[in-house]
């Protein structure tokens, strides 16, 4: 647990791709056990933001801390210098990430996908890792698919394996990058159910999503991003009843059909 009580705190994060400024000073703090949904139109910078938390993107300004540790950089004489590859890898191991396109390893079975990082990165004995992986696959409802390759799983099943794979590292924080956007409508529910359960168990989560139903049921807080900034923040109820900004109202009217 960090000194300031936040699992994740981002301060004035800036990011540009060439001349395009994607993040124009984003600040967000997430407490232990909190579930925060990030919504906003495409191109608003929400995916870039959570990729920065995982240091999959370098940042051009500001700072991000997870569990009180600066992510991707170390401080030297008041300047931020990019950290060594190995220590960035160590930090990433503490943060789980679930991708829009699952990114399961196609040459490994569901079980092998889940045990890969614990065994290779943490050096967990294989038998112990397998036990833990079987437990995780049971939790996401896929105990019977343990020896199946991703190519033979549906999108919803693949995404649930991907969640189990991220959980296997026992992360302090889980990031979800539009986890249901690439899924067929009929399997979205099964993924959201797993995520809701995770939220109930007290996992700290930041979820980029357009699923307002999920936000209403599971989120403690919703953050609306537009044009590289957070423009509105509040409880899910706030967003359903009385969104303040015109831009938010517009956006919600489009996704809440």
């Amino acid at each position: 647990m960090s000194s300031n009580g936040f699992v994740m705190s981002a301060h004035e994060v800036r990011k540009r791709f060439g001349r395009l400024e994607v993040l124009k000073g984003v600040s967000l703090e997430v407490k232990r056990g909190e579930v925060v949904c990030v919504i906003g139109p495409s191109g608003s910078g929400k995916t870039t933001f959570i990729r920065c938390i995982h240091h999959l993107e370098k940042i051009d300004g500001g700072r991000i801390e997870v569990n009180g540790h600066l992510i991707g950089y170390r401080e030297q004489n008041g300047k931020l210098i990019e950290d060594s590859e190995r220590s960035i890898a160590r930090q990433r191991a503490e943060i789980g990430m679930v991708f829009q396109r699952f990114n399961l390893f196609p040459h490994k079975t569901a079980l092998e996908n889940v045990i890969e990082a614990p065994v290779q990165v943490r050096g967990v004995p294989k038998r112990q890792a397998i036990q833990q992986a079987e437990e995780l696959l049971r939790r996401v409802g896929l105990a019977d698919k343990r020896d199946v390759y991703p190519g033979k799983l549906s999108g919803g099943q693949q995404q649930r394996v991907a969640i189990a794979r991220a959980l296997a590292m026992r992360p302090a924080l889980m990031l979800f990058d539009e986890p249901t956007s690439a899924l067929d409508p009929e399997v979205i529910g099964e993924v959201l159910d797993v995520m809701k359960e995770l939220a109930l168990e007290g996992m700290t989560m930041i979820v980029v999503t357009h699923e307002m139903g999920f936000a209403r049921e599971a989120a403690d807080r919703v953050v609306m991003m537009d044009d590289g900034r957070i423009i509105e923040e509040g409880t899910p109820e706030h967003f359903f009843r009385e969104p303040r900004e015109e831009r938010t109202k517009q956006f919600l009217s489009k996704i809440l059909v």
Partner: protein
Amino acid sequence: MLAAFEWHILWQRIFHPDHVFVLALWRTIYISVAAQVFGVLLGLIAALMRMSKIWPLRVLSGLYVLVFRGTPVIVQIFFVYFGANLLFGFNLIPRTANFGLFQLDGAAFAGIVALSINEGAYMREIIRAGIDAIDRGQMEAARSLGMHYRLAMRRIVLPQAARVIVPPLGNEFNNMLKTSSLIFFIGVTELFGDAEIRYSTTFKPVEYFTAVAFWYLVLTTIWSVIQAQIERKLSVSERGEEPSFRERVFQAWAPVAAWGRGAR
């Protein structure tokens, strides 16, 4: 003036190969295999250098491909075998190379070195294309789990790239079996060299070269069966049915079958 084709020579070369011939056949095999193995290793190193953050390594990798893909193998073979002696006055390649467990004739050793270096340049391009073919999300997912670059490369990216690499790699080895005949010109008596020597003493080129062509065909056919086997192993998770041994032999002869169908 058409001299009579002496079938008995062909017959004898194919069905009753003598000891000298078997030794030549063996040389072709081990030289090709060794050169291919080291070629793949060199290609892998060069492909990884090309993706390095350190620019001199990238430049070196580029120069390597430029030079060794851009000049004839036979010239490279001559340079490796005679080059150091003629330029600097010392022998780079010893008369016999001693590897403890076994000894290797200096010329054969030079041949392996030259063919490996040449092959590495082609393999770099093949391996690079294989790595590029893997979705970037794979590297990202691996790193998001806390794997560092080398671990992610070794465990996640390269095993997947291997599937893309094996078919063209098979082609390369097929070529290697035949290209290795060039080292006859630095005095290694391999398959082609053996035929060359026999013909020069008997003046029966057609018989001996037909026989040697047959043996190259045997080698390449065996190889295509092995290659099909490897490809099947690698894609076991993707395909369901696997072809039988007989079908694989037939597949290797598919061009002949296609030609037969076309003629009808």
